[in-house]
């Protein structure tokens, strides 16, 4: 049994310690907002936060998250950065098919938390690990800037 704290709630899960968080969240805890895209840390669809830092849950074993705070897309709207990112995503109609967007939102929220006023270079660095096949990248960039500007005005 492994004990995990996900979005402030404690769960005991019967999995081997090397089981990636991705499948633990999706298949055992029923939290399907975190997406499977590649299984190799190449696409970013599975991005979650552990202690506020973005990680690829497809490569992160549950053992690495024991005693830490896991945040997923289902709860990122409760953080100030996550809320601003989601609002900007809606305002600019960022998503198309939407499948990668959980990961995009999680990466973007982590970026804003670390760098409230990211440059284009910062955006590239933080977001280049997140693939979108629909090509929503220009709107992602614009939405991050919008969310950052919203932060400034507060």
């Amino acid at each position: 049994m492994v004990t995990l704290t996900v979005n402030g709630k404690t769960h005991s899960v019967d999995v081997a310690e090397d089981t990636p968080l991705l499948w633990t969240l999706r298949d055992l805890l029923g939290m399907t907002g975190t997406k499977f895209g590649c299984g190799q840390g190449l696409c970013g669809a599975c991005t979650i936060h552990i202690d506020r830092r973005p990680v690829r849950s497809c490569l992160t074993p549950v053992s690495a998250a024991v005693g830490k705070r896991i945040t997923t897309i289902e709860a990122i709207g409760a953080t100030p950065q996550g809320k601003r990112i989601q609002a900007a995503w809606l305002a600019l109609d960022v998503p198309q098919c939407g499948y990668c967007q959980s990961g995009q939102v999680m990466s973007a929220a982590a970026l804003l938390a670390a760098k409230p006023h990211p440059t284009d270079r910062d955006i590239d660095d933080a977001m280049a690990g997140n693939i979108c096949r629909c090509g929503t990248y220009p709107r992602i960039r614009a939405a991050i800037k919008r969310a950052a500007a919203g932060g400034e005005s507060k």
Partner: protein
Amino acid sequence: MNTIRPGLLPPAGFSRRSFLKITVATAVEGGLLLGLGLPARAMVSDTLTTDAPFAPNAFLRIGRDGTVSFVMPMIEMGQGTYTSLPMLIAEELEVDVDKVVIEHSPPDDKVYANPLLGAQITGASTAIRSMYVPLRRAGATARVMLVAAAAQAWGVDPATCVAADGAVVHSATGRKLQYGALVDDASKIPLPADVPLKDPSQFRLVGKPHHRLDISGKVDGSATFGIDVRLPGLKFAVLATSPVLGGTLASLDEKKALAVPGVTQVVRLDDAVAVVARHTWAAKQGLAAADPQWDAGANAKVSSADIVAQLAKAAEMSGAVAKHVGDPVAAIPRAARRVDAVYEQPFLAHATMEPMNCTVHFTKDSCEIWVGTQIPGLTQSAVMRQTGLTRERVRLHNHLLGGGFGRRLEYDGTLRAVQVARQDEGPVQVIWTREEDIQHDMYRPYYYDRMSAGLDEHGAPQAWWHRITGSSIVARYNPAWMRGGVDPDAVEASENLPYELPNLHVEYVRQEPLTGMQTTWWRGVGVTRGTFAVETFIDELAAAAGKDPVAYRVALLAKSPRAANVLQRAARASGWGAKLPAGQGRGIALCTGFGSFIAQVVHANVDKDGTVTPMHVWCVVDCGLQVNPDTIRAQMESGVIFGLSAALFGEITIKDGRVEQTNFGDYRVLRINEVPTIDVELVDSGEAPGGIGEPGTSCLMPALTNAIFAATGKRIRKLPVGQQARRA
């Protein structure tokens, strides 16, 4: 924000009467037959709810509480249909589109047939083209009935009543009844035969940018894709298919697989194995432990070079003639100048962000399926053939698609999942790993195009000859669409040239790749492959003539003013002709598919080592009447980026019978740091609406390679670009 819910059941209130109404109201071919002939609905109708008494047609219903539900005849895979199609209904129904409930349509190739394709298919950029009138009529019909019901209740002339914002108002007295209060009476009103539709000048919704209705769940993780289905007792299966295409399963270590904690079953199939477990990770571990061994079969030594050699050989044979005007065979040798070229385009995978998956619960007398598909009806029929079950016993729940791009125009994944589920008890979700998804995709065919042209003494083309060789998707997908030996998809952009030419010949040679390698649709379908060849060749002709690529094209477009207009506007937007630094160039291309006219200019930088960096793309689109202008912009951005990924990097290659690419590491796609500035200009032509999901991709590839030519003098005749423009 709108609710999106599954549409397994037919619209509530569906009855024999409703079917007759559908038939009359929407004139869906075969609706009458379905309504009167098939027992399927009678069975399902037992489960109908009764809270929505007003269902004047297959596309909408209104409950007594005023809840308006729209049933979507097309699926949503990112292209924006779940916004633009509701806008069409809401425009005529006079309701707030932001408050409607959107439902996936149940599988039904008659009621929800795409009028342009004859079955329930979302593809080929046809949603708006095929539904622009039927959905408005659906909304208008219901509105007329609601107004009639209100007028009857008040004892006034319907002409004195106005529908607005979900209610009917009697203008003279100010009396008002909400739609919800009118549904019982409205359902008794005889169906109006021919309702007038709004003149586009009266549109309050259509033609103005509207926020997408499907995205609130896409930013908070609550949207449900096929892979997100969770059912009581659900198990998870991971597949391994013979890595050599066409090979078979020889042996595996079942004991070791079952020893992995969580693994419940090993399912052996002829050419694959699936390991079923409590969760996907256990299934993956179990599969690795099973260590399946394979009989490679006939393809053990086949490589891409063999396939291309076969294509090249086939391209020497004469093909089935698609178009013949004048006498190009005689005219080319007589011309002042002759230009010949061969173009090659590789196999391409789709790599949708949501890997292939399908959830199936199979019992001895039923099969229930949860999947995201572009073809719900065809999928249901295929499972009926596979299992021998009747239609009412094969239930399919469609979902949002995590990308389609043509991949989900096939039901191979569902049939595979049913094979697995038949050997399992309880529901099972079959997941393709990314490696499995890429290595066992159905690929965009490898195409081999030979082209020749004869130019007169001024450089103008007098004759044009084009032989297209490649796998026929149509011959497999729907043989009835073939024209003799001509695959109409493969030749589309070539036979419908916008350019005026006195002598033109287009022919097609069908050459299939190895057994076990199937081909299918890919974004932009035949227009993408054809536009690359045509727009590269016309650029070559312009260069041979020493003419400006824009002026050269425009001179041939006297009879296609919309095409000439987008070309000239794209040139203008880009500042065409500006002097550029060494190693940079601009290329232009025109695409006239899907009822739309698009021109793009690409500005690219080419390093000495051949690395190509697209810096700026200008895209001008005339897709006729615009339903949701922001969706058109989004689809152009999307199409450009999708096309750049393929043109720069996209390639599936075969070695020893195996697909060499495995994941996003070796099947590269564009990332955010590689995206150029994209400017989109919309032309307000007011013509009939055209498609927009695909042509952005079709136009991009030749615009890019023409830019590389402009920058370096290197003509790219074979995709992907890779490092071909290396100069060092």
